[in-house]
Protein backbone atom coordinates (compact mmCIF):
# COMPACT_ATOMS: atom_id res chain seq x y z
CA UNK A 1 0.00 0.00 0.00
CA UNK A 2 1.34 3.40 -0.84
CA UNK A 3 2.49 5.69 1.92
CA UNK A 4 0.10 8.45 0.97
CA UNK A 5 -2.97 6.37 1.64
CA UNK A 6 -1.63 4.92 4.83
CA UNK A 7 -1.72 8.14 6.78
CA UNK A 8 -5.49 8.31 6.34
CA UNK A 9 -6.86 6.28 9.18
CA UNK A 10 -10.26 4.69 9.32
CA UNK A 11 -12.34 6.65 11.81
CA UNK A 12 -13.71 5.07 14.95
CA UNK A 13 -17.25 4.01 14.15
CA UNK A 14 -20.22 3.11 16.24
CA UNK A 15 -21.31 -0.54 16.08
CA UNK A 16 -23.27 -1.33 12.96
CA UNK A 17 -26.07 -2.84 14.94
CA UNK A 18 -28.61 -0.49 16.44
CA UNK A 19 -27.67 2.47 14.26
CA UNK A 20 -30.39 4.19 12.30
CA UNK A 21 -31.06 2.94 8.78
CA UNK A 22 -30.26 5.57 6.18
CA UNK A 23 -30.81 3.55 3.03
CA UNK A 24 -32.98 0.45 2.84
CA UNK A 25 -33.25 -1.38 -0.47
CA UNK A 26 -35.24 -4.55 -1.00
CA UNK A 27 -35.47 -6.19 -4.42
CA UNK A 28 -34.28 -3.00 -6.08
CA UNK A 29 -34.65 -3.52 -9.82
CA UNK A 30 -34.19 -1.29 -12.82
CA UNK A 31 -34.67 -2.57 -16.33
CA UNK A 32 -33.60 -0.72 -19.42
CA UNK A 33 -34.83 -1.80 -22.82
CA UNK A 34 -32.67 -4.87 -23.20
CA UNK A 35 -30.91 -5.41 -19.90
CA UNK A 36 -31.43 -5.16 -16.16
CA UNK A 37 -29.04 -2.67 -14.59
CA UNK A 38 -30.28 -3.63 -11.15
CA UNK A 39 -31.66 -7.09 -10.58
CA UNK A 40 -33.23 -7.40 -7.17
CA UNK A 41 -30.48 -5.77 -5.14
CA UNK A 42 -30.85 -5.87 -1.34
CA UNK A 43 -28.79 -3.71 0.99
CA UNK A 44 -28.87 -1.54 4.08
CA UNK A 45 -26.74 1.46 4.94
CA UNK A 46 -26.63 2.60 8.56
CA UNK A 47 -25.86 6.06 9.88
CA UNK A 48 -22.30 6.99 10.76
CA UNK A 49 -20.85 4.64 8.15
CA UNK A 50 -18.59 5.13 5.16
CA UNK A 51 -19.74 2.59 2.63
CA UNK A 52 -17.91 1.63 -0.54
CA UNK A 53 -20.19 0.43 -3.33
CA UNK A 54 -17.75 -1.43 -5.51
CA UNK A 55 -18.27 -3.28 -8.73
CA UNK A 56 -17.01 -3.64 -12.28
CA UNK A 57 -18.19 -1.39 -15.10
CA UNK A 58 -21.83 -1.93 -15.91
CA UNK A 59 -22.56 -3.72 -12.64
CA UNK A 60 -25.27 -1.22 -11.68
CA UNK A 61 -23.39 1.09 -9.31
CA UNK A 62 -24.44 4.33 -10.92
CA UNK A 63 -27.99 3.13 -11.43
CA UNK A 64 -28.21 2.28 -7.72
CA UNK A 65 -27.00 5.75 -6.82
CA UNK A 66 -29.42 7.35 -9.27
CA UNK A 67 -32.27 5.43 -7.69
CA UNK A 68 -31.19 6.58 -4.21
CA UNK A 69 -31.04 10.19 -5.41
CA UNK A 70 -34.44 10.03 -7.07
CA UNK A 71 -32.98 10.59 -10.52
CA UNK A 72 -34.49 7.49 -11.99
CA UNK A 73 -37.55 5.33 -11.66
CA UNK A 74 -37.21 1.75 -10.38
CA UNK A 75 -39.06 -1.35 -9.19
CA UNK A 76 -38.83 -2.79 -5.73
CA UNK A 77 -38.61 -1.12 -2.36
CA UNK A 78 -36.25 1.73 -1.59
CA UNK A 79 -36.35 4.11 1.35
CA UNK A 80 -33.78 6.83 1.87
CA UNK A 81 -34.05 8.50 5.29
CA UNK A 82 -37.51 7.00 5.40
CA UNK A 83 -38.54 8.79 2.21
CA UNK A 84 -39.42 7.55 -1.26
CA UNK A 85 -36.87 9.21 -3.58
CA UNK A 86 -39.32 9.13 -6.47
CA UNK A 87 -42.03 11.07 -4.70
CA UNK A 88 -40.19 13.24 -2.19
CA UNK A 89 -37.09 14.30 -4.09
CA UNK A 90 -37.01 18.01 -3.17
CA UNK A 91 -37.46 17.22 0.56
CA UNK A 92 -34.92 14.42 0.35
CA UNK A 93 -32.31 16.67 -1.23
CA UNK A 94 -32.30 18.84 1.90
CA UNK A 95 -30.71 15.92 3.70
CA UNK A 96 -28.77 14.30 0.89
CA UNK A 97 -25.83 15.72 -1.05
CA UNK A 98 -24.03 14.26 -3.98
CA UNK A 99 -20.99 14.79 -6.11
CA UNK A 100 -21.58 12.85 -9.27
CA UNK A 101 -18.37 12.59 -11.19
CA UNK A 102 -15.91 15.46 -11.35
CA UNK A 103 -16.57 18.70 -13.16
CA UNK A 104 -20.35 18.82 -13.12
CA UNK A 105 -20.36 22.40 -11.86
CA UNK A 106 -21.69 24.70 -14.59
CA UNK A 107 -18.78 26.22 -16.46
CA UNK A 108 -20.16 29.76 -16.53
CA UNK A 109 -20.65 30.12 -12.77
CA UNK A 110 -18.33 32.12 -10.53
CA UNK A 111 -17.24 30.99 -7.08
CA UNK A 112 -19.23 33.80 -5.47
CA UNK A 113 -22.34 33.04 -7.52
CA UNK A 114 -22.21 29.35 -6.68
CA UNK A 115 -22.02 30.16 -2.96
CA UNK A 116 -24.78 32.78 -3.15
CA UNK A 117 -27.05 30.45 -5.07
CA UNK A 118 -26.63 27.45 -2.79
CA UNK A 119 -27.04 29.73 0.24
CA UNK A 120 -30.24 31.02 -1.32
CA UNK A 121 -31.89 27.69 -2.07
CA UNK A 122 -30.45 25.35 0.57
CA UNK A 123 -31.74 25.80 4.13
CA UNK A 124 -28.94 23.71 5.64
CA UNK A 125 -26.02 25.47 3.95
CA UNK A 126 -23.51 27.26 6.19
CA UNK A 127 -21.89 30.05 4.17
CA UNK A 128 -19.22 30.91 6.74
CA UNK A 129 -18.11 27.29 6.83
CA UNK A 130 -17.90 27.13 3.05
CA UNK A 131 -15.83 30.30 2.93
CA UNK A 132 -13.48 28.87 5.56
CA UNK A 133 -12.91 25.79 3.39
CA UNK A 134 -12.34 27.94 0.32
CA UNK A 135 -9.83 30.14 2.16
CA UNK A 136 -7.53 27.11 2.26
CA UNK A 137 -7.54 26.87 -1.53
CA UNK A 138 -6.31 29.18 -4.25
CA UNK A 139 -9.82 29.83 -5.51
CA UNK A 140 -11.02 33.44 -5.52
CA UNK A 141 -14.53 34.87 -5.44
CA UNK A 142 -14.66 36.14 -9.00
CA UNK A 143 -13.17 33.04 -10.59
CA UNK A 144 -15.26 31.18 -13.13
CA UNK A 145 -15.44 27.40 -13.18
CA UNK A 146 -14.27 27.43 -16.81
CA UNK A 147 -10.98 28.98 -15.60
CA UNK A 148 -10.33 26.18 -13.12
CA UNK A 149 -8.50 22.88 -13.39
CA UNK A 150 -10.41 19.68 -12.66
CA UNK A 151 -8.83 19.54 -9.23
CA UNK A 152 -9.90 23.07 -8.40
CA UNK A 153 -13.47 22.38 -9.53
CA UNK A 154 -13.61 19.46 -7.12
CA UNK A 155 -12.21 21.67 -4.35
CA UNK A 156 -15.06 24.12 -4.92
CA UNK A 157 -17.68 21.42 -5.12
CA UNK A 158 -16.38 19.74 -2.00
CA UNK A 159 -16.29 23.04 -0.08
CA UNK A 160 -19.95 23.62 -0.97
CA UNK A 161 -21.02 20.09 -0.12
CA UNK A 162 -19.13 19.98 3.17
CA UNK A 163 -20.82 23.20 4.28
CA UNK A 164 -24.21 21.52 3.93
CA UNK A 165 -25.38 19.77 7.06
CA UNK A 166 -26.70 16.68 5.29
CA UNK A 167 -27.32 13.17 6.61
CA UNK A 168 -26.14 11.31 3.52
CA UNK A 169 -23.38 12.21 1.10
CA UNK A 170 -23.24 10.25 -2.15
CA UNK A 171 -20.00 10.29 -4.13
CA UNK A 172 -19.92 8.76 -7.60
CA UNK A 173 -16.32 8.48 -8.81
CA UNK A 174 -15.54 11.78 -7.09
CA UNK A 175 -11.81 11.79 -7.84
CA UNK A 176 -11.75 10.42 -11.37
CA UNK A 177 -9.04 12.11 -13.40
CA UNK A 178 -7.48 13.97 -10.47
CA UNK A 179 -3.82 13.74 -9.59
CA UNK A 180 -2.67 12.07 -6.38
CA UNK A 181 -2.38 15.34 -4.42
CA UNK A 182 -5.98 16.33 -5.05
CA UNK A 183 -7.23 12.78 -4.46
CA UNK A 184 -5.44 12.56 -1.15
CA UNK A 185 -6.62 16.00 -0.08
CA UNK A 186 -10.17 15.14 -1.06
CA UNK A 187 -10.50 12.16 1.28
CA UNK A 188 -8.47 13.84 3.99
CA UNK A 189 -10.87 16.80 4.06
CA UNK A 190 -13.88 14.51 4.12
CA UNK A 191 -12.59 12.71 7.19
CA UNK A 192 -11.20 15.68 9.07
CA UNK A 193 -13.80 18.31 8.39
CA UNK A 194 -16.98 16.54 7.50
CA UNK A 195 -17.55 13.02 8.66
CA UNK A 196 -19.04 12.30 12.09
CA UNK A 197 -21.36 9.75 13.65
CA UNK A 198 -24.46 11.52 12.32
CA UNK A 199 -23.32 11.48 8.74
CA UNK A 200 -23.13 8.71 6.21
CA UNK A 201 -21.02 8.58 3.09
CA UNK A 202 -21.69 6.26 0.16
CA UNK A 203 -18.83 6.08 -2.35
CA UNK A 204 -18.40 4.37 -5.67
CA UNK A 205 -14.95 4.37 -7.15
CA UNK A 206 -12.57 2.33 -9.22
CA UNK A 207 -9.64 3.52 -7.18
CA UNK A 208 -10.34 1.01 -4.43
CA UNK A 209 -6.85 1.21 -2.94
CA UNK A 210 -7.37 4.84 -2.08
CA UNK A 211 -10.62 4.48 -0.21
CA UNK A 212 -10.25 1.13 1.48
CA UNK A 213 -8.54 2.68 4.49
CA UNK A 214 -11.45 4.98 5.19
CA UNK A 215 -14.32 2.58 4.50
CA UNK A 216 -16.26 1.09 7.38
CA UNK A 217 -18.48 -1.05 5.17
CA UNK A 218 -18.25 -2.79 1.83
CA UNK A 219 -20.90 -3.55 -0.74
CA UNK A 220 -19.81 -5.54 -3.78
CA UNK A 221 -22.18 -5.37 -6.70
CA UNK A 222 -22.18 -7.57 -9.77
CA UNK A 223 -24.73 -7.95 -12.54
CA UNK A 224 -27.20 -5.80 -10.63
CA UNK A 225 -27.02 -7.88 -7.45
CA UNK A 226 -25.21 -7.28 -4.17
CA UNK A 227 -22.70 -10.13 -3.88
CA UNK A 228 -21.04 -9.09 -0.65
CA UNK A 229 -22.24 -6.88 2.18
CA UNK A 230 -19.92 -6.64 5.14
CA UNK A 231 -18.30 -4.32 7.62
CA UNK A 232 -14.55 -4.01 7.38
CA UNK A 233 -14.20 -5.72 10.79
CA UNK A 234 -16.24 -8.68 9.63
CA UNK A 235 -14.33 -8.81 6.40
CA UNK A 236 -11.05 -9.07 8.33
CA UNK A 237 -12.45 -11.90 10.40
CA UNK A 238 -14.02 -13.76 7.54
CA UNK A 239 -11.47 -13.54 4.73
CA UNK A 240 -7.85 -14.46 5.02
CA UNK A 241 -4.92 -14.51 2.66
CA UNK A 242 -2.14 -17.02 3.09
CA UNK A 243 1.30 -16.94 1.51
CA UNK A 244 2.02 -20.60 0.77
CA UNK A 245 5.33 -22.29 -0.12
CA UNK A 246 5.39 -24.45 -3.22
CA UNK A 247 5.46 -27.68 -1.19
CA UNK A 248 2.17 -26.94 0.56
CA UNK A 249 0.21 -25.81 -2.48
CA UNK A 250 -1.77 -29.06 -2.77
CA UNK A 251 -2.79 -28.87 0.87
CA UNK A 252 -3.80 -25.27 0.40
CA UNK A 253 -5.94 -26.16 -2.60
CA UNK A 254 -7.67 -28.84 -0.60
CA UNK A 255 -9.11 -26.18 1.70
CA UNK A 256 -11.12 -24.75 -1.22
CA UNK A 257 -9.68 -21.28 -1.62
CA UNK A 258 -11.68 -18.53 -3.31
CA UNK A 259 -8.68 -17.64 -5.37
CA UNK A 260 -5.09 -18.51 -6.01
CA UNK A 261 -2.42 -16.35 -7.54
CA UNK A 262 1.31 -16.62 -8.03
CA UNK A 263 3.69 -14.66 -5.85
CA UNK A 264 7.48 -14.26 -5.86
CA UNK A 265 10.00 -17.10 -5.23
CA UNK A 266 7.61 -19.80 -6.42
CA UNK A 267 5.18 -19.08 -3.61
CA UNK A 268 1.43 -18.71 -4.09
CA UNK A 269 -1.16 -16.54 -2.40
CA UNK A 270 -4.43 -18.22 -1.48
CA UNK A 271 -7.57 -16.36 -0.49
CA UNK A 272 -10.05 -18.09 1.84
CA UNK A 273 -13.57 -17.35 2.92
CA UNK A 274 -14.49 -18.45 6.46
CA UNK A 275 -11.69 -20.96 6.74
CA UNK A 276 -10.39 -22.31 10.04
CA UNK A 277 -7.52 -20.00 11.14
CA UNK A 278 -5.61 -22.88 12.77
CA UNK A 279 -5.57 -24.87 9.57
CA UNK A 280 -4.48 -21.79 7.60
CA UNK A 281 -1.70 -21.04 10.06
CA UNK A 282 -0.15 -24.41 9.24
CA UNK A 283 0.05 -23.46 5.54
CA UNK A 284 1.95 -20.23 5.92
CA UNK A 285 1.81 -16.60 6.89
CA UNK A 286 -1.75 -15.23 7.26
CA UNK A 287 -2.60 -11.72 6.11
CA UNK A 288 -5.74 -9.63 5.98
CA UNK A 289 -6.62 -9.38 2.26
CA UNK A 290 -6.87 -5.98 0.68
CA UNK A 291 -10.24 -4.91 -0.66
CA UNK A 292 -8.85 -4.83 -4.17
CA UNK A 293 -7.55 -8.40 -3.94
CA UNK A 294 -10.87 -9.55 -2.56
CA UNK A 295 -12.64 -7.63 -5.30
CA UNK A 296 -10.53 -9.11 -8.07
CA UNK A 297 -10.97 -12.61 -6.64
CA UNK A 298 -14.74 -12.41 -6.33
CA UNK A 299 -15.28 -10.68 -9.67
CA UNK A 300 -13.25 -13.16 -11.74
CA UNK A 301 -14.83 -13.95 -15.05
CA UNK A 302 -16.87 -10.76 -15.17
CA UNK A 303 -15.45 -9.65 -18.50
CA UNK A 304 -14.58 -13.12 -19.79
Amino acid at each position, binding site marked *: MNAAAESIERPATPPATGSETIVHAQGLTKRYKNAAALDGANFEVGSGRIVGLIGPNGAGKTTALKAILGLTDFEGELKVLGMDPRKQRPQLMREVCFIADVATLPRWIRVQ*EAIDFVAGVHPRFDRAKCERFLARTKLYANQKVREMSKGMIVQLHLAIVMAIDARLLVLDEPTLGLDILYRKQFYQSLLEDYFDENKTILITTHQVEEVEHILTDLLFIRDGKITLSTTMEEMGARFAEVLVNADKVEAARALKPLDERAAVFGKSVFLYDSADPEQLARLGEIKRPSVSDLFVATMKGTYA
Partner: protein
Amino acid sequence: MNAMLKSPFAWLLKREYWEHRRSFLRTQWVVAAVVIALTILGIIAAEVWGARTGNNIQIGFSGSLNDALQNGLSQNTDALVRGLDSMLLSFGLIASIVLFFVVFFYLLGALYDDRRDRSILFWKSLPVSDTATVIAKVVSATVVAPIIAVIVVLAAYIVQQIVMSIWFGAHGLNPFTLIWAHVGPFSTWLHLVAAIPVDAVWALPTVGWLLFWSAAVRSKPFLWAVFIPIIAGVLNFWVGLIGLPHVNIGFFWGDLVGRALLSVFPGSWMAVYRNDPSMLNQLTNMSAGEHVGTYGMMYHTFLTPDMWIGAAVGIALIAAAIWFRRWRDEV
Protein backbone atom coordinates in the same frame (compact mmCIF):
# COMPACT_ATOMS: atom_id res chain seq x y z
CA MET B 1 -40.56 42.68 -0.97
CA ASN B 2 -37.32 41.92 0.81
CA ALA B 3 -38.57 38.47 1.70
CA MET B 4 -39.52 37.97 -1.95
CA LEU B 5 -36.02 38.86 -3.13
CA LYS B 6 -34.55 36.35 -0.71
CA SER B 7 -36.91 33.49 -1.56
CA PRO B 8 -35.45 30.43 -3.26
CA PHE B 9 -37.46 31.27 -6.38
CA ALA B 10 -35.81 34.69 -6.63
CA TRP B 11 -32.46 32.91 -6.52
CA LEU B 12 -33.54 30.69 -9.40
CA LEU B 13 -34.28 33.84 -11.42
CA LYS B 14 -30.93 35.37 -10.47
CA ARG B 15 -29.17 32.21 -11.51
CA GLU B 16 -30.84 32.41 -14.94
CA TYR B 17 -29.80 36.04 -15.22
CA TRP B 18 -26.20 35.26 -14.25
CA GLU B 19 -25.95 32.59 -16.89
CA HIS B 20 -27.61 34.68 -19.59
CA ARG B 21 -26.71 38.27 -18.76
CA ARG B 22 -24.68 38.36 -21.95
CA SER B 23 -27.74 37.80 -24.11
CA PHE B 24 -30.40 39.38 -21.86
CA LEU B 25 -28.52 42.60 -21.14
CA ARG B 26 -25.32 43.00 -23.09
CA THR B 27 -26.73 42.23 -26.54
CA GLN B 28 -29.49 44.78 -25.93
CA TRP B 29 -27.22 47.61 -24.96
CA VAL B 30 -24.65 46.86 -27.62
CA VAL B 31 -27.36 47.12 -30.29
CA ALA B 32 -28.72 50.33 -28.71
CA ALA B 33 -25.21 51.78 -28.59
CA VAL B 34 -24.76 51.02 -32.28
CA VAL B 35 -27.99 52.90 -33.09
CA ILE B 36 -26.86 55.91 -31.01
CA ALA B 37 -23.45 55.80 -32.68
CA LEU B 38 -25.19 55.86 -36.08
CA THR B 39 -27.19 58.91 -34.98
CA ILE B 40 -24.00 60.70 -34.01
CA LEU B 41 -22.39 59.75 -37.32
CA GLY B 42 -25.49 61.11 -39.07
CA ILE B 43 -25.25 64.43 -37.21
CA ILE B 44 -21.55 64.73 -38.03
CA ALA B 45 -22.26 63.97 -41.68
CA ALA B 46 -25.01 66.62 -41.73
CA GLU B 47 -22.67 69.18 -40.19
CA VAL B 48 -19.79 68.40 -42.54
CA TRP B 49 -22.12 68.38 -45.52
CA GLY B 50 -23.67 71.63 -44.31
CA ALA B 51 -20.29 73.32 -43.96
CA ARG B 52 -19.16 72.22 -47.41
CA THR B 53 -22.30 73.36 -49.19
CA GLY B 54 -22.22 76.76 -47.54
CA ASN B 55 -24.81 76.20 -44.89
CA ASN B 56 -27.35 75.35 -47.50
CA ILE B 57 -28.35 71.86 -46.49
CA GLN B 58 -31.86 70.70 -47.15
CA ILE B 59 -33.33 68.40 -44.61
CA GLY B 60 -36.93 68.48 -45.56
CA PHE B 61 -37.11 72.20 -44.92
CA SER B 62 -35.79 75.04 -47.02
CA GLY B 63 -32.89 77.22 -46.00
CA SER B 64 -29.74 76.63 -44.02
CA LEU B 65 -29.33 74.00 -41.34
CA ASN B 66 -29.97 76.67 -38.73
CA ASP B 67 -33.05 77.94 -40.48
CA ALA B 68 -34.25 74.48 -41.09
CA LEU B 69 -34.00 73.55 -37.47
CA GLN B 70 -35.31 76.83 -36.12
CA ASN B 71 -38.17 77.46 -38.47
CA GLY B 72 -39.12 73.95 -39.25
CA LEU B 73 -39.12 72.50 -35.78
CA SER B 74 -40.40 75.39 -33.70
CA GLN B 75 -43.36 75.85 -36.00
CA ASN B 76 -44.28 72.25 -36.29
CA THR B 77 -44.17 70.79 -32.82
CA ASP B 78 -46.63 68.06 -33.71
CA ALA B 79 -44.25 66.66 -36.23
CA LEU B 80 -41.46 66.98 -33.70
CA VAL B 81 -43.30 65.02 -31.04
CA ARG B 82 -44.16 62.36 -33.58
CA GLY B 83 -40.56 62.22 -34.64
CA LEU B 84 -39.34 61.85 -31.08
CA ASP B 85 -41.90 59.19 -30.32
CA SER B 86 -41.03 57.24 -33.40
CA MET B 87 -37.40 57.32 -32.30
CA LEU B 88 -38.42 55.64 -29.09
CA LEU B 89 -40.48 53.19 -31.09
CA SER B 90 -37.63 52.38 -33.40
CA PHE B 91 -35.48 51.64 -30.37
CA GLY B 92 -38.37 49.50 -29.15
CA LEU B 93 -38.67 47.68 -32.47
CA ILE B 94 -34.95 46.96 -32.68
CA ALA B 95 -34.95 45.77 -29.06
CA SER B 96 -37.96 43.55 -29.87
CA ILE B 97 -36.15 41.87 -32.73
CA VAL B 98 -33.13 41.28 -30.51
CA LEU B 99 -35.39 40.05 -27.71
CA PHE B 100 -37.10 37.59 -30.04
CA PHE B 101 -33.84 35.87 -30.99
CA VAL B 102 -32.47 36.01 -27.45
CA VAL B 103 -35.58 34.47 -25.90
CA PHE B 104 -36.04 31.92 -28.68
CA PHE B 105 -32.56 30.46 -28.28
CA TYR B 106 -32.64 30.85 -24.51
CA LEU B 107 -35.73 28.62 -24.36
CA LEU B 108 -34.30 26.04 -26.76
CA GLY B 109 -31.22 25.66 -24.57
CA ALA B 110 -32.86 26.14 -21.19
CA LEU B 111 -33.48 22.47 -20.44
CA TYR B 112 -30.91 21.07 -22.84
CA ASP B 113 -27.54 22.78 -22.32
CA ASP B 114 -27.12 21.57 -18.75
CA ARG B 115 -27.94 18.02 -19.82
CA ARG B 116 -25.29 18.24 -22.51
CA ASP B 117 -22.55 19.45 -20.17
CA ARG B 118 -23.86 17.30 -17.28
CA SER B 119 -24.14 20.27 -14.93
CA ILE B 120 -27.77 19.15 -14.50
CA LEU B 121 -26.30 16.76 -11.91
CA PHE B 122 -25.24 19.76 -9.84
CA TRP B 123 -28.61 21.55 -10.17
CA LYS B 124 -30.40 18.33 -9.29
CA SER B 125 -28.29 17.88 -6.17
CA LEU B 126 -30.04 20.87 -4.58
CA PRO B 127 -33.43 20.88 -2.88
CA VAL B 128 -35.21 22.59 -5.77
CA SER B 129 -38.18 20.95 -7.46
CA ASP B 130 -38.12 20.48 -11.20
CA THR B 131 -41.38 22.42 -11.40
CA ALA B 132 -39.75 25.47 -9.77
CA THR B 133 -36.74 25.15 -12.08
CA VAL B 134 -38.84 25.11 -15.23
CA ILE B 135 -41.17 27.90 -14.07
CA ALA B 136 -38.14 30.08 -13.29
CA LYS B 137 -37.09 29.64 -16.90
CA VAL B 138 -40.57 30.55 -18.14
CA VAL B 139 -40.55 33.71 -15.99
CA SER B 140 -37.04 34.61 -17.14
CA ALA B 141 -38.09 34.40 -20.77
CA THR B 142 -41.43 36.20 -20.47
CA VAL B 143 -40.82 38.74 -17.70
CA VAL B 144 -37.15 39.24 -16.80
CA ALA B 145 -35.72 39.49 -20.33
CA PRO B 146 -38.50 41.89 -21.56
CA ILE B 147 -38.15 44.15 -18.49
CA ILE B 148 -34.41 44.40 -19.10
CA ALA B 149 -35.11 45.21 -22.77
CA VAL B 150 -37.58 47.98 -21.87
CA ILE B 151 -35.13 49.53 -19.40
CA VAL B 152 -32.38 49.51 -22.04
CA VAL B 153 -34.78 51.08 -24.56
CA LEU B 154 -35.59 53.94 -22.18
CA ALA B 155 -31.95 54.50 -21.29
CA ALA B 156 -30.94 54.49 -24.96
CA TYR B 157 -33.74 56.90 -25.76
CA ILE B 158 -32.63 59.33 -23.05
CA VAL B 159 -29.03 59.18 -24.27
CA GLN B 160 -30.27 59.79 -27.82
CA GLN B 161 -32.22 62.86 -26.68
CA ILE B 162 -29.18 64.23 -24.88
CA VAL B 163 -27.21 63.89 -28.11
CA MET B 164 -30.00 65.68 -29.99
CA SER B 165 -30.14 68.41 -27.32
CA ILE B 166 -26.46 69.11 -27.68
CA TRP B 167 -26.89 69.31 -31.42
CA PHE B 168 -29.90 71.65 -31.17
CA GLY B 169 -28.11 73.74 -28.55
CA ALA B 170 -25.13 74.15 -30.87
CA HIS B 171 -27.49 75.69 -33.40
CA GLY B 172 -28.94 78.14 -30.92
CA LEU B 173 -32.12 76.23 -30.34
CA ASN B 174 -33.40 75.69 -26.82
CA PRO B 175 -33.48 71.94 -26.29
CA PHE B 176 -35.61 72.33 -23.16
CA THR B 177 -38.56 73.91 -24.90
CA LEU B 178 -38.07 71.93 -28.08
CA ILE B 179 -37.23 68.45 -26.94
CA TRP B 180 -37.71 67.93 -23.25
CA ALA B 181 -40.99 69.85 -22.95
CA HIS B 182 -42.59 67.87 -25.74
CA VAL B 183 -41.10 64.55 -25.23
CA GLY B 184 -43.75 62.23 -24.07
CA PRO B 185 -41.44 59.28 -23.67
CA PHE B 186 -43.11 58.23 -20.52
CA SER B 187 -46.49 57.67 -22.08
CA THR B 188 -44.97 55.64 -24.90
CA TRP B 189 -42.61 53.95 -22.51
CA LEU B 190 -45.48 52.99 -20.23
CA HIS B 191 -47.11 51.40 -23.26
CA LEU B 192 -44.05 49.20 -23.62
CA VAL B 193 -44.24 48.24 -19.94
CA ALA B 194 -47.98 47.65 -20.09
CA ALA B 195 -47.52 45.34 -23.06
CA ILE B 196 -45.28 42.94 -21.09
CA PRO B 197 -48.10 40.95 -19.42
CA VAL B 198 -49.98 40.72 -22.72
CA ASP B 199 -46.82 39.59 -24.51
CA ALA B 200 -46.11 37.10 -21.71
CA VAL B 201 -49.44 35.28 -21.87
CA TRP B 202 -49.50 35.46 -25.67
CA ALA B 203 -45.99 33.92 -25.78
CA LEU B 204 -46.94 30.80 -23.79
CA PRO B 205 -47.48 28.42 -26.76
CA THR B 206 -44.01 29.19 -28.13
CA VAL B 207 -42.48 29.10 -24.65
CA GLY B 208 -44.06 25.69 -24.05
CA TRP B 209 -43.17 24.36 -27.49
CA LEU B 210 -39.49 25.31 -27.23
CA LEU B 211 -39.12 24.15 -23.61
CA PHE B 212 -40.80 20.87 -24.50
CA TRP B 213 -38.20 20.03 -27.14
CA SER B 214 -35.44 21.41 -24.98
CA ALA B 215 -36.35 18.91 -22.26
CA ALA B 216 -37.44 15.98 -24.39
CA VAL B 217 -34.79 15.28 -27.00
CA ARG B 218 -31.40 13.69 -26.66
CA SER B 219 -29.81 16.18 -29.04
CA LYS B 220 -30.50 18.97 -31.56
CA PRO B 221 -33.61 20.57 -30.03
CA PHE B 222 -33.51 23.30 -32.70
CA LEU B 223 -34.07 20.83 -35.53
CA TRP B 224 -37.00 19.16 -33.77
CA ALA B 225 -38.65 22.38 -32.68
CA VAL B 226 -38.32 24.19 -35.99
CA PHE B 227 -38.48 21.50 -38.65
CA ILE B 228 -41.41 19.50 -37.32
CA PRO B 229 -43.89 22.38 -37.69
CA ILE B 230 -42.40 23.51 -41.00
CA ILE B 231 -42.46 20.03 -42.52
CA ALA B 232 -45.99 19.53 -41.20
CA GLY B 233 -47.02 22.82 -42.81
CA VAL B 234 -45.49 21.89 -46.14
CA LEU B 235 -47.14 18.44 -46.08
CA ASN B 236 -50.49 19.98 -45.24
CA PHE B 237 -50.07 22.39 -48.14
CA TRP B 238 -49.15 19.54 -50.44
CA VAL B 239 -52.14 17.47 -49.36
CA GLY B 240 -54.30 20.49 -50.16
CA LEU B 241 -52.55 20.88 -53.49
CA ILE B 242 -53.51 17.40 -54.65
CA GLY B 243 -57.05 18.06 -53.51
CA LEU B 244 -57.32 15.86 -50.44
CA PRO B 245 -58.93 17.02 -47.18
CA HIS B 246 -56.51 19.21 -45.24
CA VAL B 247 -56.36 21.88 -42.59
CA ASN B 248 -56.98 25.40 -43.86
CA ILE B 249 -53.60 26.61 -45.12
CA GLY B 250 -53.78 30.05 -43.53
CA PHE B 251 -54.93 28.60 -40.20
CA PHE B 252 -52.16 26.02 -40.23
CA TRP B 253 -49.35 28.48 -40.84
CA GLY B 254 -50.77 31.35 -38.83
CA ASP B 255 -52.49 29.72 -35.88
CA LEU B 256 -50.44 26.55 -35.50
CA VAL B 257 -46.92 27.02 -36.88
CA GLY B 258 -46.86 30.76 -36.22
CA ARG B 259 -48.11 30.47 -32.67
CA ALA B 260 -45.69 27.62 -31.94
CA LEU B 261 -42.60 29.48 -33.17
CA LEU B 262 -43.20 33.22 -33.32
CA SER B 263 -45.41 34.11 -30.34
CA VAL B 264 -42.40 35.23 -28.32
CA PHE B 265 -42.07 38.20 -30.66
CA PRO B 266 -43.19 41.24 -28.61
CA GLY B 267 -46.47 42.64 -29.89
CA SER B 268 -47.21 39.62 -32.05
CA TRP B 269 -50.60 39.45 -30.31
CA MET B 270 -51.66 42.22 -32.72
CA ALA B 271 -52.10 39.40 -35.24
CA VAL B 272 -55.29 38.52 -33.41
CA TYR B 273 -56.85 41.65 -34.92
CA ARG B 274 -55.86 40.89 -38.50
CA ASN B 275 -59.44 40.06 -39.45
CA ASP B 276 -61.01 42.85 -37.39
CA PRO B 277 -61.42 45.97 -39.58
CA SER B 278 -62.38 48.32 -36.74
CA MET B 279 -59.31 47.41 -34.70
CA LEU B 280 -57.08 47.61 -37.76
CA ASN B 281 -58.55 51.02 -38.45
CA GLN B 282 -57.71 52.13 -34.93
CA LEU B 283 -54.16 50.94 -35.42
CA THR B 284 -53.58 52.79 -38.68
CA ASN B 285 -55.20 56.00 -37.49
CA MET B 286 -53.25 56.26 -34.30
CA SER B 287 -50.55 58.80 -33.76
CA ALA B 288 -47.05 57.39 -33.69
CA GLY B 289 -46.94 57.44 -29.92
CA GLU B 290 -49.84 55.09 -29.70
CA HIS B 291 -48.66 52.70 -32.31
CA VAL B 292 -47.91 49.93 -29.91
CA GLY B 293 -51.64 49.87 -29.40
CA THR B 294 -53.91 51.54 -26.92
CA TYR B 295 -54.22 50.06 -23.48
CA GLY B 296 -57.78 49.10 -24.36
CA MET B 297 -56.64 47.24 -27.43
CA MET B 298 -53.80 45.52 -25.60
CA TYR B 299 -55.95 44.25 -22.84
CA HIS B 300 -58.81 43.41 -25.14
CA THR B 301 -56.52 40.59 -26.26
CA PHE B 302 -57.30 38.89 -22.97
CA LEU B 303 -60.92 38.60 -24.15
CA THR B 304 -60.06 36.67 -27.29
CA PRO B 305 -60.20 32.87 -27.48
CA ASP B 306 -56.88 32.87 -29.39
CA MET B 307 -55.15 34.13 -26.27
CA TRP B 308 -56.57 31.48 -23.96
CA ILE B 309 -56.48 28.50 -26.27
CA GLY B 310 -52.82 29.30 -26.93
CA ALA B 311 -52.14 29.75 -23.22
CA ALA B 312 -53.78 26.40 -22.39
CA VAL B 313 -51.70 24.60 -25.02
CA GLY B 314 -48.59 26.39 -23.79
CA ILE B 315 -49.20 25.39 -20.18
CA ALA B 316 -49.78 21.76 -21.21
CA LEU B 317 -46.46 21.78 -23.08
CA ILE B 318 -44.69 23.34 -20.08
CA ALA B 319 -46.16 20.60 -17.86
CA ALA B 320 -44.79 18.00 -20.30
CA ALA B 321 -41.39 19.73 -20.17
CA ILE B 322 -41.46 19.48 -16.35
CA TRP B 323 -42.22 15.78 -16.60
CA PHE B 324 -39.29 15.21 -18.93
CA ARG B 325 -37.03 17.30 -16.70
CA ARG B 326 -38.01 15.10 -13.78
CA TRP B 327 -37.71 11.68 -15.36
CA ARG B 328 -35.26 11.80 -18.27
CA ASP B 329 -32.23 10.04 -16.87
CA GLU B 330 -29.79 9.44 -19.67
CA VAL B 331 -27.02 11.41 -17.93
